[in-house]
């Protein structure tokens, strides 16, 4: 049996915005054939590295772009792990942006309703606020921005989304 529910929301509701600062964003470009090896290196790492957020894109059929955002304290251990792996020539490109900041938010019906990404990205673009990376899946929206911009992003988005009253 299929159940269909409908709802209407005047202004998109969120549970509020959260910010994390002092983060490092790694961008690793590699051939799909190198994915298993890099995955094994991550799987077998012993430093207890935890990410704050991850993203993988496929810019073309022969390149994968892996983004790993983590606290700055994990930058050196990850860099060391990647340098070992890179010696095999498997990494096409490795870039690090640090420090960067992340703003993320969730809301009721996120994942089930339209317009959240458009509202978010077009609002920030209209204000000239740069986005390094973003992702929406499940009921979450994550936005990575350069240092010192997360508060302005939060204040800007608070004007177009409904946030809990304090």
């Amino acid at each position, binding site marked *: 049996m299929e159940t269909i529910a409908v709802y209407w929301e005047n202004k998109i509701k969120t549970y509020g915005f959260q910010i994390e600062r002092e983060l490092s964003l790694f961008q690793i470009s590699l051939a799909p054939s190198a994915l298993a090896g890099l995955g094994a290196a991550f*799987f077998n790492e012993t430093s207890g590295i935890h990410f704050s957020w991850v993203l993988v894109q496929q810019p073309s059929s022969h390149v994968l772009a892996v983004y790993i955002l983590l606290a700055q304290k994990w930058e050196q251990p990850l860099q060391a792990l990647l340098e070992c792996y890179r010696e095999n020539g498997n990494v096409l490109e490795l870039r690090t942006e640090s420090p960067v900041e992340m703003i993320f938010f969730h809301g009721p019906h996120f994942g089930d309703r339209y317009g959240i990404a458009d509202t978010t990205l077009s609002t920030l673009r209209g204000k000239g606020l740069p986005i390094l*990376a973003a992702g929406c899946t499940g009921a979450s929206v994550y936005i990575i921005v350069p240092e010192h911009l997360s508060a302005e992003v939060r204040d800007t988005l608070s004007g177009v989304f409904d946030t809990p009253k304090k």
Partner: protein
Amino acid sequence: MGKKIRVNGIKLSHELIHINILPKSDKRNFNERFLRSMAENRINLPFLSYSAINRRVQGSFCIAAEDSGRLNQILALDPPLKESVECISPVGSVSLFPHNFSLKLFGCLMHVFGKACLPLYGMAASLSALTVTTDFHLLDRAIELLKPHISLPPNHAPFEPQIRIKSI
């Protein structure tokens, strides 16, 4: 590979269409144009990834397969946009939760997909889940390949959502 990673559950999506905005086309803001079209036509995006580093912009999105008719209508009315998108279908997503922000689980997914040469169109973390998209007909195979590396609660079976919410 090391010992198994504890995972509390696996969720599968319905059939989806994966859409890449071709990187060469963003000088005309096709990512923004595509998102606006989806919002205007009330099409939900259950998966989105976007990056804009070093002047290289890459956007990828998923929509429900049932929205394919409306997508085709939108693209037919906007030939430049149509030329700037690549559609892959049917795809589906596998979500493992919780991820516990574990690089090991992220690495496990990468290793399994890479070793089996399963297409990996995108992967992203949410608050608690890691979601990866691949060809729809390969979802079951992906789970079978993951099982040796993860520990699931007894009697757990990957599930598909039974309720679909449609916004008006």
